[in-house]
């Protein structure tokens, strides 16, 4: 009991002083009842508030330091959680984590059986035929129309392809040839463009 008290990191300096005084009194015999009364009186004394101890470096105990560190950690955690909540999630910008398009079918999205089919990203293949183009990329509302972010790969047949996971719903897109020329997908229904007057294509994505 005594040993565990000695090692207790939460020990109070005031209690320590009382203990030392009692120990050093000549002829003093350990009196458990008296010690109990003294300790009770000490604990009954009003203590500084948590905020006071946090802001007063001279009174800061090990416990307070640990508490401050915990508060800091919690604040960071909450901050980053909140940031994730207010910034677009990976569902909103599904291409962020996919890397360069490979033409391979990313089955990990399709096999997520527990997820809600109304929201889980669906692998969607885009195909474009142009043997003369040196580069083809996909732009659309799903990648913020960023040219070059989703390149298509050229197959030996001369077809270009990319498979990207898209959230279910209606998506408007187009292809960018050699970095500058924007063309609609000739194999897909057209999407009008009231804002810029440049026709695109539309794809309806849903879990089949």
């Amino acid at each position, binding site marked *: 009991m005594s040993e565990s008290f000695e090692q207790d990191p939460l020990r109070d300096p005031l209690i320590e002083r009382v203990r030392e005084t009692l120990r050093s009194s000549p002829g003093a015999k350990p009196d458990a009842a008296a010690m109990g009364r003294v300790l009770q009186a000490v604990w009954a004394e009003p203590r500084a508030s948590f905020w006071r101890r946090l802001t007063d*470096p001279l009174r*800061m105990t090990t416990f307070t*330091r640990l508490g*401050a*560190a915990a*508060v*800091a*950690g919690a*604040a*960071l955690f*909450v*901050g*980053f959680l*909140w*940031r994730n909540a*207010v*910034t*677009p999630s990976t569902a*909103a910008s599904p291409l962020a984590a996919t890397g360069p398009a490979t033409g391979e079918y990313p089955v990990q999205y399709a096999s997520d059986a527990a997820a809600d*089919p*109304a929201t889980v990203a669906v692998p969607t293949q885009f195909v474009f035929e142009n043997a003369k183009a040196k580069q083809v990329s996909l*732009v659309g*509302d799903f990648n*913020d*129309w*960023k*040219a070059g972010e989703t390149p298509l790969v050229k197959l030996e047949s001369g077809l270009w392809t990319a498979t990207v996971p898209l*959230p*279910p*719903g*209606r998506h408007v897109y187009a292809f*960018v040839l050699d970095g500058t020329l*924007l063309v609609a997908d000739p194999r897909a*229904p057209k*999407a*009008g*463009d*009231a*804002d*810029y007057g*440049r026709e695109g294509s*539309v794809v*309806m*994505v*849903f*879990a*089949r």
Partner: protein
Amino acid sequence: MSMNRVVSSLVALALAGVSASAAFAQGPAVLPIADVKARQAVEREISRAAAKGLPTQPLISKAMEGVTKQASGERIHSAVASQARRLEQARDLLAPSPTVAELVAGADALVVGVPASMLKQIRAAWPRQSVAMPLDVLTELVARGVPAKHALKQITTLMVAGATPTQIAGVGASVQSDVASGLAPDAALEVRARGVMSLLPSPAAQALLAPSSRGPRAPR
């Protein structure tokens, strides 16, 4: 440096990190619009929308679409302002608490000419479920030439009868390919909606499919 100062600095750093993280998340990124005045006007538009509580990502996306389509700065500004207005209108029509996906779908519906009142009717059909997919399908049907009134009726009937968003999306995709292969948009929608309806177990769906639904049965 004492332990106390280290702890105090740690707390201050943590609080600064929280503020910086939040500020970075909400501030618009610098848009690659060559015309400086137009870029600043677009950024002001996005900030105004954020102040109204509208999502900024669809506006950034609209501006980037203009950049990729090599539109003038003035036109990009005009498109972003229009999109902000549509998002605000959609928010009012899809009240009380539409998601970002619903707002974007609502704005897209308004662009293709879906009457504003129809957004309210879609919300009324599914007050607690996301209406993003039904709105997307309504937009697509209207864009393919189905009269808005007819499209709305078929979609809300499916919604009320218990069709899932995936089933409703399937109707939209099927009509899309039917129209591409030459079927009339109206007829394609009717047949595809009926196909989904036959899969639904709800009494409302079965009543709609039954021959008696064409008119009241005469009393015996």
